[in-house]
């Protein structure tokens, strides 16, 4: 059972039943919603429109619409900011983290929902506590451990940390998916002679796919946007992920808003496109994750 699965039918019913009385009040609601939408959306539009202005135009017309489409900022930002390298590094980090989390959390959630494990309850509680604890609790020793074993300034080092941080949440989410899959299915497979591994990969895995997709989106987004570990553990320019590459660029060119805004747009485009395609899953996934943002 997923959040989206349970919410959808209810909302349909709610739409039909609960609103007739509210028609007269909706203009009021639309007015305030529009104000809130402007508050949320206008700053993003300023980012976009300023990225198309030259430095001179920006001085004359700081917040208005640009005169034309001047793509020079994008070319300059791309060349000067090391954004290509940053995006590539982030792609590696995101893919590594998502796949690693799928493996770790997939196996763990299967064990928690299907196998006779000792200390099952304790393990579930442990995961919940880990999710809520400040990362600072292990940040400092981890940093010096990583520098001793040479994982500092490397992408695998960062990926391992992200997997460890994301796995507890992903395990609990996937467990709720797997608990919803009827046990009769694995029993039927077992009678047909399937072993534990075949049940896990051929019966449960395909049915839990929406769960894996949600986990992938949430974990991928988190590792793309992550700042604290990226800034602490990576300092060599060639291994900076996009978030810190962008940060360095924007701090180095602090008054060149046109240029830096173009870099910002470049960083946002992949996320916004993905979001517009997979809105519902993003929203239900993030709402259920209580992800640090």
């Amino acid at each position: 059972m997923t959040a989206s699965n349970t919410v959808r039918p209810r909302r349909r019913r709610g739409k039909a039943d609960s609103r007739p009385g509210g028609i007269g009040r909706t203009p009021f609601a639309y007015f305030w919603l529009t104000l809130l939408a402007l508050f949320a959306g206008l700053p993003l539009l300023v980012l976009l429109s300023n990225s198309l202005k030259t430095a001179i135009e920006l001085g004359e017309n700081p917040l208005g619409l640009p005169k034309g489409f001047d793509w020079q900022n994008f070319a300059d930002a791309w060349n000067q900011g090391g954004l290509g390298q940053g995006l590539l590094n982030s792609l590696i980090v995101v893919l590594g983290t998502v796949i690693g989390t799928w493996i770790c959390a997939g196996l763990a959630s299967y064990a928690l929902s299907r196998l006779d494990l000792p200390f099952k309850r304790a393990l579930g509680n442990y995961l919940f506590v880990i999710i809520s604890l400040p990362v600072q609790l292990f940040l400092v020793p981890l940093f010096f451990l990583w520098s001793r074993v040479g994982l500092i300034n490397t992408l695998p080092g960062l990926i391992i940390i992200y997997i460890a941080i994301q796995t507890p949440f992903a395990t609990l989410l996937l467990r709720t998916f797997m608990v919803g899959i009827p046990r009769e299915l694995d029993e039927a497979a077992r009678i047909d002679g399937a072993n534990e591994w075949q049940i896990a990969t051929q019966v449960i895995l395909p049915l839990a796919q929406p769960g894996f997709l949600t986990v992938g989106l949430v974990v991928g987004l988190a590792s793309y946007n992550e700042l604290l570990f990226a800034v602490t553990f990576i300092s060599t320019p060639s291994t900076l992920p996009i978030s810190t590459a962008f940060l360095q660029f924007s701090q180095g060119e602090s008054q060149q808003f046109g240029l830096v805004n173009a870099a910002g747009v470049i960083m946002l485009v992949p996320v916004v496109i993905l979001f517009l395609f997979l809105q519902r899953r993003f929203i239900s996934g993030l709402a259920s994750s209580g992800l640090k943002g």
Partner: protein
Amino acid sequence: MAPALIVNLIVIGGPGISSFYYAFTNWNGITTPQFTGLDNFFRLVNDPDFWNAIGHNAIYMVIFMTVPLVMGLAGAFMLSRIRRGASFFRVIFFIPYLTASVVNALIWKNLLDPTYGLAAELDKIGIHWLDNVYFFGDSHLSLYSVAFVDNWHFWGFLVVLFLAAMQGVDASRYEAARLDGANAWQEFWHICLPGIRPTLTFAFMIISLWSLLGFDYPYVLTDGGPGGSSNLVALLVNQTAFEGLQAGYAAFIALMMSLLGAIFLIVFAIIRRNEDETT
């Protein structure tokens, strides 16, 4: 289960437990740590930087338990009552939550910049109030400016969270209230809010935890400055450990953070248990 546990133990479990030891040493990260007993505790009690930062965390928490909460509740309640465009508004509200903190910070640095932002635009129509206001450079304003930007990014998440909960409230209760002549405010106060109470508790819980952990926005916008005026505890840990190379003391600060976080969790666990009994 095994791979998850191994990764977990290497990254979180091991270092997490060793934190308890390092917290009571004078470790600098490189040499062998020496056990110093309660020295770090007494140092913390007398450390003005720590009290400064933790005070800011408290202000952060108060701000976040009010402003985005009200905006989130209002936004979600109005969204639940309209027919057309609800998903459009929801998407707009939610996008700032998805965009990276580093980019969001840049957007507001630009908007609040005295020469390239709102101030310059207002100058054109003859309003000069903002000419010499440095939102992130003035020690009286920096903390609030940072909280404002963080809030701009965060409140849409609460809208989505509350909206999902409100759609689960039994529609017949609204019908009944309407038959009794309730107005929109009464419906909100007497039906909607009690209906989403578990989610409300959850929101308070994550807000209190996250305001303890706040790092991204102060780090990017002000780096805790000017003069520590927007420093939060999470930044202090990083500064102490990696700039001051006082890993032992930083571990102790982090331990205190975790202790506070644990207290919040226990308090909310008790509140939730009571809720389960009453409902």
